[in-house]
């Protein structure tokens, strides 16, 4: 099953390679990984999308927790969450295709963020379904380039586990 995991980490050099190294060294899957700053300048937030059976995901979460630079790990898939991804798609758009491209952009509430005589660059934000759908519709027009941010996600309700609670994570007791 797919899991989206939020990992709050120290904002220090080398942390990304510790997390990436954990996944490669232990043969865990990693579908996407995005990192960014938070309102606290000493802390960064990573959103990881991974797959595996329960035992593997439990290991992933425990191994992440074990990293000294990891402050908190939340498996968002355990509750309700909102996930979004942004994509920039550059398509070739000439003649009649230009109108078709704009129609599709409109339907998906996407935006044209750049335009040249031969191309449009479209920005779309949404969940995976929406993104896949617009990509499929734009394909016939000719996609020249495509860049995705990877998913970021946030829990819908306030997560009760406080930062200091890392060792109290219920996964650690397996209960």
């Amino acid at each position, binding site marked *: 099953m797919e899991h989206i995991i939020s990992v709050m980490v120290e904002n220090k050099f080398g942390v990304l*390679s510790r997390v990436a190294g954990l996944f490669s060294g232990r043969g865990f899957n990693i579908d996407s990984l995005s990192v960014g700053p938070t309102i606290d300048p000493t802390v960064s937030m990573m959103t990881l999308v991974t797959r595996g059976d329960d035992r593997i995901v439990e290991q992933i979460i425990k*191994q992440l927790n074990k990293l000294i630079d990891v402050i908190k790990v939340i498996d968002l898939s355990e509750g309700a969450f909102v996930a979004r991804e942004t994509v920039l798609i550059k398509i070739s758009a000439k003649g009649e295709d230009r109108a078709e491209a704009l129609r599709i952009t409109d339907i998906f509430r996407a935006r044209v963020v750049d335009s040249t005589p031969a191309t449009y660059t479209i920005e779309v934000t949404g969940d995976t379904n929406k993104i896949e759908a617009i990509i499929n519709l734009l394909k016939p027009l000719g996609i020249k380039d495509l860049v995705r941010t990877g998913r970021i996600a946030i829990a819908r309700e306030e997560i009760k586990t406080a930062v200091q609670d890392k060792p109290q994570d219920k996964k650690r007791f397996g209960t």
Partner: protein
Amino acid sequence: MKLNGAQIFVESLKKEGVKVIFGLPGGVVLKIFDVLYDYKDPEVILTRHEQGAMHMAEGYAKATGKAGVVLVTSGPGMTNTVTGLADASMDSVPLVVFTGQVSTSLIGNDAFQEADNVGISRPCTKYNYLVKDVNDLAQTIKEAFYIATTGRPGPVLVDIPKDVSMNQTEFNYPEKVYIRGYNPTYEGHKWQIKQAAEAILKAKRPILYVGGGTVFSNAFEELREFAEMTQIPVDMTLMALGSFPGTHPLSLGMLGMHGSYTSNMAIHHSDLIIAVGSRFDDRVTGKVSEFAPHAKIIHIDIDPTSIQKIMNVDIPIVGDVKCVLKELNQHLRASLDGRRKEELKPWWNQLEEWKKKNPLTYKQNKDQKIKPPYLIDRLYELTHDQNPIVSTDVGQHQMWAAQFFKLDHPRTWLTSGGLGTMGFGFPAALGAQRAFPGRLVLSIVGDGSFQMNLQEMATAMDYHLPVKVAIVNNGYHGMVRQWQDLFYNSRYSSSFLGQHPDYVKLADAYGAVGLRATKPEEVDGVIKEALKIDKPVLIDFQVDPYENCYPMIPAGGANNEMIMEDPPELRKKEKDKAGMKKAGNGEKEGVLTA
């Protein structure tokens, strides 16, 4: 007053109570070595190879429980430490390893003797640091020792660029550390401990499966009280030997691939496994899907990732073994009564039956070559009253030592378990000898393994470390040869070593003492002679090259499917090869029950 980085380094180590540094100098750490030149304490032990320094520090750490400290130069100095780092990671050995680095301005430029020390060591350390500013040095050293020695111990590497060792700043050693992402759990979950106590009181065929974590948490007394109170038999992993007395009536000895018949049968047939500081390594479980099919599992470990990694666990308890056992003992003391011993009687009857059926044993005929288990048995008999520290290398001799050298005291067993590092034994013994100058330190090594770090003979001489090295010289990579016998039709591809060097001459060349025994009746004599010599002694025990180590669970087999002796085909072949006579009179049989 302002100090330079090198002075801060040494003063910080003094604050940490470091007495010895194992190391070898080079360009970028010369400033640090220069400062150390003025100090007697900490003392620098100059090794002949950085790998030697690493294993010495490991031996020191395992024997004392304190962090072992290593100081080496950049580039090749650091890369030579990698095996030791990986070994210490696997076996949870607290080390703080300081590596030199090129100056900060040169990092990333492929400078002379530059290596990405932090990148190379990341997967084989518990944590690592690159100190970019002298103002961070003291704090980093404090954190390094804290991380290495707390929680599940492990190696921490601190990379110090040359300019950082020269730059000056005010020295303030921090009193405390707080690392928000690092809070090991020591106290076990109360409810889980209660559940465990209840399960223990109900079990009909319980077994303790004790691992190295028991040693690191110094839980010897708690474990002993627990076992004696509950009358539960004790299986030990290779790493745990000594954490429970090997001669105790409740001990079944080592379990796993070369464990005793009884210990493996016991865990296979148990209805409750109490795993204490152990991690269900594949050398213990064999085929996981057939491991202990009837058992419920209680798993106590300080490392949450060890729990539920291999086996489904019924009652997981994250915590320090000592703390958890203490609390568990309290519960049990209140609820146990005399009936428990009665209730476990059928289980113990079964265990005694297994012990009788297949005791750990060997046969030594006086016309035969020295049988390695006989040798280990004699070493044990002639030294155990001195409570020696015993180190081993990796291979058959290691397994025989684990089977036949019964250790009754914790921190007397130095062996490379998780990584299985040949070349570990001799330097580890030197490290332990440095920690305990007056004690008898025995190093039981293989001829193959010993040759991987024999350059440390010079270190042994320099620092007067009178380790007694017993070379179990079978002229082979014996364990490899054994697998080739059993699984590759005795095709000895690259496992033959032959008889070089001449170990007696080698000892002589270093100024140490070399002794040799080629016949069983010579064994006692050379051991006794070696014990009288206050110098490093190398004893070349020329043993039967074709002896194989049993019991053995073939890789991927289940624990109740042990091979107990050479298959008949092989027995014949080997007898022919060894040109041995038929067992005649004067046969001496040693039977050790475990």
